[in-house]
């Protein structure tokens, strides 16, 4: 009986079943295989997430986006960034258990990266004021090992200049043999996605180079032939060359945009990374 009834309640769109997600009492319908995080966006509910970026694959390793999936008597904590919605589900974001788990994860991260302003800011937004834990892991201070930089470098930029080295507490993000990488084009995508501000772009005025810190990789900056202003690095310009296909209609249309909007449109068409601030 129940199965027949639930069949009748199922919602279909264009022949596909559309599951309904109830998040903290708000109901939204999302396409099958959407993530809980996507459903939460739709419902206007904020869930903190650090290692998540729609431009790259999900690894669900920071565990900050834990929510409680209500099933039967006792719920189950799942990572909202990669849990696929396949059926109608009820999710609790603000429930005590989910909040406690997210707070616990944040406290551990604060102990690892105590000097990151970005992390503290996010912690405050979550209502976490500090950490009861001492810093016990020493390798690569202030990096929370979310791996976004690595995924961006590999999947979006196509360089794979950095990767994880070591295991467990000794894990770190580094270039091969911790030397300046020849594969790095110093594009700065890693610095842009880094949620805790550990990766920085440093401009060396004396040599006209950009350095990606802490990886020590450097590349020469391209200089505007007219005014001498520094542009992107030379390898980036070279790489972009191969990616840009000039479409004259598109070009004409863009000519009607202001420089600011034109730049945005260009960046979007290059399928680069979504801004972390979005």
């Amino acid at each position, binding site marked *: 009986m129940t199965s027949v009834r639930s069949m009748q309640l199922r919602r279909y769109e264009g022949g596909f079943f559309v599951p309904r997600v109830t998040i903290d009492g708000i109901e939204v319908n999302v396409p099958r295989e959407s993530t809980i995080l996507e459903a939460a966006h739709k419902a206007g509910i904020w869930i903190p997430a650090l290692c998540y970026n729609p431009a790259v694959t999900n690894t*669900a*390793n920071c565990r900050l986006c834990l929510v409680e999936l209500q099933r039967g008597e006792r719920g189950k904590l799942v990572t909202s960034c990669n849990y696929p919605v396949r059926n109608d589900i009820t999710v609790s974001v603000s429930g005590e258990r989910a909040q406690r*788990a997210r707070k616990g994860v944040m406290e*551990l991260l604060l102990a690892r990266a105590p000097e990151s302003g970005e992390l503290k800011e996010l912690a405050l937004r979550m209502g976490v004021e500090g950490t009861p834990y001492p810093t016990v892991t020493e390798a690569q201070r202030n990096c929370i090992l979310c791996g976004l930089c690595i995924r961006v470098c590999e999947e979006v930029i196509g360089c794979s200049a950095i990767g994880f080295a070591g*295991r467990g507490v000794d*894990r770190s993000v580094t270039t091969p043999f911790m030397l300046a990488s020849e594969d790095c084009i110093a594009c700065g995508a890693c610095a842009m996605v880094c949620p805790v501000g550990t990766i920085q772009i440093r401009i060396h005025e004396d040599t006209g180079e950009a350095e990606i810190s802490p990886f020590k990789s450097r590349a020469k900056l391209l200089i505007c032939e007219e005014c001498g202003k520094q542009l992107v690095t030379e390898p980036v310009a070279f790489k972009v060359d191969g990616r840009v296909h000039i479409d004259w209609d598109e070009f004409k249309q863009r000519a009607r945009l202001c420089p600011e909007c034109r730049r945005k449109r260009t960046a979007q068409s290059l399928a680069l990374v979504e801004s972390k601030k979005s």
Partner: protein
Amino acid sequence: MPVAVDRLIKNPSDLENYRKKLKGEVNPAVKRVRVCIGTACAAKGSRRLYELFRAAADESGADVEIEAKSVGCHGLCERGPIVVVEPGDILYQSVEEPDVAEIFRETVLGGKVVDRLLYEDPSSGKKAKSEKQIPFYQVQKRIVLAENGRIDPTSIDDYIRSGGYTALEKTLSTMTPEDVIIEVEKSGLRGRGGGGFPTARKWRSCREAEGNQKYVICNGDEGDPGAFMDRSIMEGNPHSVLEGLIIGSYAIGATQGYIYVRNEYPLAVEHLKNAIGQAQEYGFLGENILDSGHSFDIRINRGGGAFVCGESTALIASLEGRTGEPRAKYVHTVEHGLRDLPTNLNNVETWANIPAIINNGGEWLAQIGTEKSKGTKVFSLVGKIVNTGLVEVPMGITLRDIVYNIGGGVQNGKAFKAVQTGGPSGGCIPAKFLDAGVDFDELTKLGSMMGSGGMIIMDEDTCVVNFAKYYINFLRQESCGKCTPCREGIPQVLHILERITHGEGEEGDIEKLETLAQLLADGSLCALGSTAANPVISTIRYFRDEYETHIRDQRCPAKECRGLFAFEIIPDQCKGCGICIKKCPVDAITGERRLPHLINQDICTKCGTCYDKCPFDAIAKV
């Protein structure tokens, strides 16, 4: 395409004839010496014993035929090397090189028993002539280990002679894949790797998953400290694992199998490699096995020694050549496993159970065990136990039976304190639950788990806090570092435990440990992290007072945590020899010669040197 080699056994009748031929070759008058070459016995020099017996057999010139045979682990590793002489199945234990000549002369040629090498029951003092008379074996029920210690693991003929590959023949000639799954379902077999997932259900999901290519994997990455069940099966009877895999591949529809075995098991790798070569040569692997139309082959992959690679998704990542890290479980491996294709992964022991199930029927296995845990389970019994070794017992047997009747009780007559089951993911079970039946659900109820089958016995001198710390330290080293709770949480747990065992514990530490444990259980990506706190949580649950004594009184009740107990000289036992005075690095001991000495507790650093050096056991921990 490789050229089709002429295989020895092309169809079921070939196998039948070949087995008849092998059985016909057995001369009942032959005297046989079986030497265990399992890792434990080999470590005590059994390979040399085997060579000596062979040389003796070759040179004897006696009328009777004598055969020396190397066999897999018997299980009674504590008493190794083990040598069994047929006829009579006379079991000799702790055999050393000089004993070979005597055994050969007296028993093999003379038919007499060498009394001094027999097993002696510590409680009754009675000597046991064969396995059957030793209590260690009497309580066991051996299905997976049945042929261990009997057959030569490097000989496929030995396996065939003892009925090997009959299950495969039965499967391929009389059963449909669905029949096989139904039979496994009837047996109630649950995954022996620790999770206890119903095997048949996993097989069916994989069978029904979409994909032209499917894989079966045998997980031989046994990494728990103190566990060696799978190793002994792979070393002692590798063909049983292969046969299980081939039957499984037929049921699931897989054409390629992998055995992932840790490289720290060189003998297991060697025996498996050898077995795969033989099975290919005989025609049990390859194209059109036994003329059934089913094709299947197996490859060995050697693991690099990461504990986390025993986790199914990490193992698959490692097989693919990537870093051995687990991934989210929302996508099942039976649908998207190795190379994103349907993959069925089972543990060594699970696979080794399959031939027996097919031969005897699912109902037969279902008669053994408890309501929800059927069959037997192999445990490796280690720690402060008299009979260290490998045991196979029916599910539902009590812990007391395992510890006392099979294990022979706690070493040196000490009191039993607890048993850790399930390795680093499990928990410890105290003496008051010794009468609990051992099965998947009962152990989980007690806050531990079945795990893959390691059983570590603790005696009264074992400090539970220190014990938990050992496991947490192990996991800290073995965590892959992918997810935050495991990577950051375990070191925090270790940090607190270290403070406690150094006498720097604070009020609230236990609660902190509990909070971290909950976070690990709730938030970790894989089972390594989510079960990591079990050793801590179970010891807090049953021995909270010991934690509190450490924290409040800076005292270790088991007197194991250095600095949390004092050394004192027992005046009656002290002979005044002066050794401790000489050895004490801080000159804390004073006393006249031939008069009882005294330790100045204000100077003593509690290093324990005097305790170790005293020849009269006159120094006590208080």
